[in-house]
């Protein structure tokens, strides 16, 4: 169908469609100019706070120009900010690579260990001539990415064990795993974070105190593991029983069957589901603001609450962060769709 004809059918195909087009068109013509005026034409981009307060000023994007360092990197010392930057890029690269089946070899585990170690060395310092930066100064985007990424290697083994446990023939193991999953999925993440914040210190032997970052990470990992376990279980269920029977006739043990036959097939199918899980966790890291860790969302409050000059322009700051989250999450969901298509291509070989 030619371009014009397609437009005509899709916008004016019948009287109902035409009416809808007209109404939407009118709404646009009313709201859009006002929005663009505020957001672009009358906006201030690189001015100081007073210029933004003038009558007739539009959106004050200068607040972003002025405060972007704190928003993106938290209270990390300015001269050392190249360190979280590199660390974040390495982590993102590793995550992208981990979704590709071509990268699933022994080397991948080595890569994870290497990148994670490098990440911590870069961020914390205190070795190789790098100055020390305590964890309470970590913030902004690197913290968001760290929490989300680190939750994967910690949650995944647990999730795998629980998924296998739920499919086990042994009733006690099956019940324990089911109880764990139902318990965690039934409560909001905030209560798990409260637990991490208030209760984990009580669980430790007296005298041993654990960094709040690690406690929060443990909470997020536990939470994520329950949802991941369900995704993996779905994948395990999709493998026909005949595969396990054939393995049995070839004298493979239970663990050999899982490792060589069931899991390689199941995990390939669940990568899209696991990615959706990761996107959800990435968004959920914003909740750690409530327990006083200043990742991306919290860093904005940090940047503006103490600065009376720029505080009226918080909404522009929020829009900036929303765009960052949107970019990351949208890109990840597109990537996940692409990976899913690649996996299906492989099946129909």
């Amino acid at each position, binding site marked *: 169908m030619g371009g014009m004809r397609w437009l005509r059918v899709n916008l004016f195909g019948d009287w109902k469609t035409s009416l809808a087009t007209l109404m939407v068109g009118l709404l646009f013509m009313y709201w859009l100019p006002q929005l663009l005026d505020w957001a672009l034409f009358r906006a201030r981009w690189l001015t100081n706070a007073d210029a933004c307060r003038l009558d007739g000023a539009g959106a004050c994007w200068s607040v972003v120009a002025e405060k972007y360092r704190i928003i993106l990197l938290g209270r990390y010392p300015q001269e050392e900010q190249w360190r979280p930057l590199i660390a974040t890029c390495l982590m993102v690269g590793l995550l992208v690579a981990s979704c590709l089946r071509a990268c699933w070899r022994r080397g991948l585990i080595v890569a994870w260990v290497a990148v994670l170690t490098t990440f911590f060395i870069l961020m914390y310092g205190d070795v190789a001539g790098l100055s020390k930066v305590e964890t309470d100064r970590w913030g902004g985007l690197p913290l968001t990415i760290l929490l989300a990424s680190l939750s994967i290697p910690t949650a995944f083994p647990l999730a795998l064990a629980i998924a296998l446990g739920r499919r086990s023939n*042994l009733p006690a*193991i099956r019940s324990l795993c089911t109880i764990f999953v139902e318990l965690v999925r039934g409560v*909001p993440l905030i209560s798990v974070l409260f637990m991490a914040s208030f209760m984990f210190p*009580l*669980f430790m*032997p007296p005298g041993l105190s654990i960094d709040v970052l690690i406690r929060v990470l443990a909470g997020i990992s536990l939470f994520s593991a329950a949802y991941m376990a369900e995704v993996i279980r779905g994948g395990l269920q999709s493998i026909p029983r005949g595969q396990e029977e054939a393995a049995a006739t070839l004298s493979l043990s239970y663990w050999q069957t899982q490792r060589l036959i069931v899991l390689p097939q199941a995990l390939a199918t669940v990568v899209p589901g696991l990615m959706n899980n990761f996107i959800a966790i990435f*968004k959920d890291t914003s909740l750690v603001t409530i327990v006083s860790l200043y990742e991306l*969302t919290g860093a904005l409050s940090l940047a503006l609450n103490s600065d009376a000059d720029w505080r009226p322009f918080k909404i522009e700051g*929020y829009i900036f962060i929303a765009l960052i989250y949107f970019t990351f*999450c949208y890109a990840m969901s597109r990537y996940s769709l692409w990976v899913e298509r690649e996996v299906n291509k492989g099946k129909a070989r």
Partner: protein
Amino acid sequence: MKSPPKKRWSWRSRTARGLIYQGLAVLLIGLLFWFLAHNTARNMTVRGIQSGFDFLAQTAGFDIGESLFAFDSEQPYWRAFLVGLVNTIRVAALGIILTTVIGTLIGIGRLARNLLVRSLCGAYVEFFRNVPILLQLLMWYLLFTEILPAADAAWRLNTWLGPVFLSKGGLNFPAPVATETGWEISLPIQGEFAVEHGGALTPEFLALLLGLTIYTAAFVAEVVRAGIQSVPRGQTEAASALGLSRAHSMRLILLPQALRVIIPPMTNQYLNLTKNSSLAVAIGYPDVVSIANTAINQSGRAVECIAIIMLIYLSTSLLTSVLMNWYNAKAAIRER
């Protein structure tokens, strides 16, 4: 007609191995719990924290911003929790209704023939799904507290029931109140400092409701869309071949089958909305998590308060699961 014989015991059997593994697992978990409980008890003695649920009868010592029934700082903790629970139910129930309506409309809109409508609905879904709910709540709250006029100069809208006012003080609308003479409608009026009388909804409640509804509606839209698309095209074709009108075919053939696919993930979204209402603590709406947070700070009983919150949410989830399973069993298409 013979029946199977009783099984006999063998140490080398799979059953024996299974029992040993299970015993080990239960033992390990039991040890872990004992270790944690032991540490907790010791830590609490060291820090002088008391334990037990008896604190619920003690005076709360704090006020609550809004509640459906009277509450002041002289009341006991358990009443405070009750207020929080009612507040949670209030916002969750209203949110579920609104999000179903909005989400269904947008879900259907994604399948519309009109390109503009389709794209707009698609953009809505993509945008609101990919921004964290906390951020959306904070933004709505900021909008409400910055953009709205002060309470002494509220925006006014005249409806056929009476005037409706919107301001930093919240939404005021005509509402029935109980008086000595029976029920009567109380109309809000613009007072010198604030809007008086009428039913009121605070800006915190409105921000939470709006944020939750709009966020969850994006997911509901996808659920509805997937449900409608899951009904094979052959069904509508067969329906029209039988001479059914579009409306009849939608009501008798499409919707019942689509609903079977829609209901389970839909209830999941309802649960998510309820769980997300716990973020009220970030914008100052006194839901049950918010109250628990204050209670922890006042009384120091972290373990008990967190346990209460988890119990409340777990009961909601389990109840919903049971209802869902019952519905699924009833509605399932009988197969061979």
